[in-house]
């Protein structure tokens, strides 16, 4: 009987094989050119590989299309705003304004996050509040958000479909000229996954190419010292090159939580006021800081952790001496910590020609 069921299985599989020819895709057999991410060796040796969805592999054509879309205002309702309008390459794909301004002239209410090393967000919780569960999902938001691009996906799809260039580019990237929102988000995600930053001064120091200044060295010690900075429990240490845990914390900014952050997404009061730790890479280019861009300088950020902490119910237990406002760093340690933090900035990332606006 078991052998008989095996034979039935064969007939079933054979049926499947032959029925496939009835639904031949328009470009059967077309395979876009696979593209490996250009990952730093140090990353490969110290952390897990980048997250690349099985249904959206990196390809040369997909990345090129994603880049074109990223810099093209065609995605916005009035065709005036592109992704780079709020995620500017020269600012490590963040926005120097506290709040970005959408096509209606209305401001947002959170600072635009920088875009780098997002392929290494292993938990795949994106945005300040973790509201997107994948990079592709994140891409859906800004296009239709009334205070950002204020468009509709049906309009985006129609506009792209009518263009003289995009149908061919989608054909090259995905083997079909039929453009839909899913393919748009896939292409942009492929481009964003290429935005890898791993060539800061500190990276080169780890690679024994250069030395740190004494000030930067002491700043690293402050960063790693539990009794002073203790920054590493949320932002990592030299053996972990992302400089963020990509987790959510209440870092003692407000006594009264007005923006619930992660709590808005989960509905759990224990998550009220929690926001995703940003990476400390490229701080030289990503001011202002915090989820609401309230601090214009790194000095203000350091002062906050040193003497500006305030208690609220969900404050992270890693925040120390909250009743005293913080650990009270010396002015010398503050300056050294800032020097170290700036050593994590990567000039080659913001000048990488692959990441610039197309001419």
């Amino acid at each position, binding site marked *: 009987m*078991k*052998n008989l069921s*095996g*034979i039935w*299985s*064969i007939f079933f*599989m*054979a049926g499947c*094989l*032959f029925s496939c020819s009835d639904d031949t895709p328009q470009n059967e057999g077309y395979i876009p050119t696979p593209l490996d991410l250009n990952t730093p060796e140090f990353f490969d*040796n*110290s*952390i*897990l590989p980048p997250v690349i969805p099985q249904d959206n592999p990196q390809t040369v054509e997909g990345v090129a299309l994603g880049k074109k879309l990223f810099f093209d205002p065609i995605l916005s309702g009035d065709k005036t705003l592109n992704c780079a309008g709020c995620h500017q390459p020269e600012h490590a794909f963040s926005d120097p304004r506290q709040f970005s301004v959408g096509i209606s002239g209305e401001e947002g209410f959170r600072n635009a996050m920088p875009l780098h090393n997002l392929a*290494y967000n*292993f*938990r795949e919780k994106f945005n300040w509040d973790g509201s997107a569960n994948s990079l592709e999902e994140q891409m859906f938001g800004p296009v239709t958000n009334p205070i950002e691009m204020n468009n509709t996906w049906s309009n985006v799809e129609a506009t792209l479909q009518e263009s003289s260039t995009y149908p061919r580019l989608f054909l090259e990237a995905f083997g079909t000229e039929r453009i839909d929102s899913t393919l748009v988000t896939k292409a942009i995600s492929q481009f964003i996954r290429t935005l890898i930053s791993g060539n800061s001064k500190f990276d080169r120091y780890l690679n024994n190419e250069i030395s740190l200044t004494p000030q930067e*060295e002491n700043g690293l*010690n402050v960063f*790693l*010292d*539990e*009794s*002073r900075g*203790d920054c*590493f*429990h*949320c932002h*990592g*240490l*030299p*053996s*972990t090159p992302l400089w963020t*845990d*990509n*987790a959510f914390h209440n870092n003692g900014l407000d006594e009264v939580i007005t923006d619930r952050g992660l709590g808005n997404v989960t509905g759990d009061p*224990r998550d009220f006021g929690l926001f995703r730790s940003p990476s400390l890479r490229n701080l030289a280019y990503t001011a202002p800081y915090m989820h609401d861009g309230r601090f214009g300088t790194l000095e203000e950020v350091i002062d906050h952790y040193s003497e500006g902490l305030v*208690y609220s119910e*969900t*404050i*992270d*237990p*890693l*925040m*120390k001496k*909250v*009743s005293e406002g913080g650990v009270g760093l010396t002015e010398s340690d503050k300056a050294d910590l800032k020097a170290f933090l700036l050593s994590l900035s990567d000039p080659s990332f913001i000048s990488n020609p692959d990441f610039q606006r197309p001419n």
Partner: protein
Amino acid sequence: MKKIVLLLLLVLTALSCKNDDDAILIQADSSVDFTFTQNWNGQTIENSDYQNTTYVNANGESMTLSKVNYLLSDFTFTSVTDGTVYASEDYNLVLARDGENTTFTPDIEIPEGDYTVSFTFGFDDEDNDKEGGYNDLNSVDGFWSVPAMLGGGYHYQRIEGTYINNAAEVTNFQFHTVRANRHETLPPGPDTLVELRDTSFEVNLGTVSVGTTTNIEVKANIAEWFNNPITWDLNERFMVLMPNFQAQLDMKENGNTVFELGAVTQ
């Protein structure tokens, strides 16, 4: 043509299969599953208890928990019959609040029989100093690595939360367990480290009968970290415990009564 060849190959494969009834039965070795649970003196700690439920420790301090993460390694089965040792040299990082890695199957198969089951709390020095480290532990939510100036390697455990201090203030605590590191002067720096001591320890769960399918519950009584034999005073030791040599030695002492064998199901 390719499809036809594939079809023929599948037919031949199917027809060549033996009837299971004809197979010779060979006793296969078994893997063993572990389930990790946490409690406070017998009261189960669920996700909803974190940041909500108040516990009172042996020193009388009211406290809440926000995070309970711990690393277990080197799961080992020693045959009661002939003393054969089956060591998995595997590790598992339990993220209790989120319920991640609360079940674990060491990468080893053993014959049915009676075994003394043990594992290591944390990493022993050999594992802690493994060249190149562990990419997965370097990538987990909540950094697990330990700064080089504290001896490097990895955390054994992170328990975090709040307690009410002697001034009746809600105060954060970080009960972080690492390899004990002694410094000539504090705060620690690149040249202050004078001694490292392996403060991981073996947990012996006792004898377990392993069958074809076996699940072993490992219960962790979190209260014991603050209780026995050293009554932990959070007012004195609530933060910056990683470079506190004596605190780490005392944690090891208290850890000896934290873990125990729970339900064994076949």
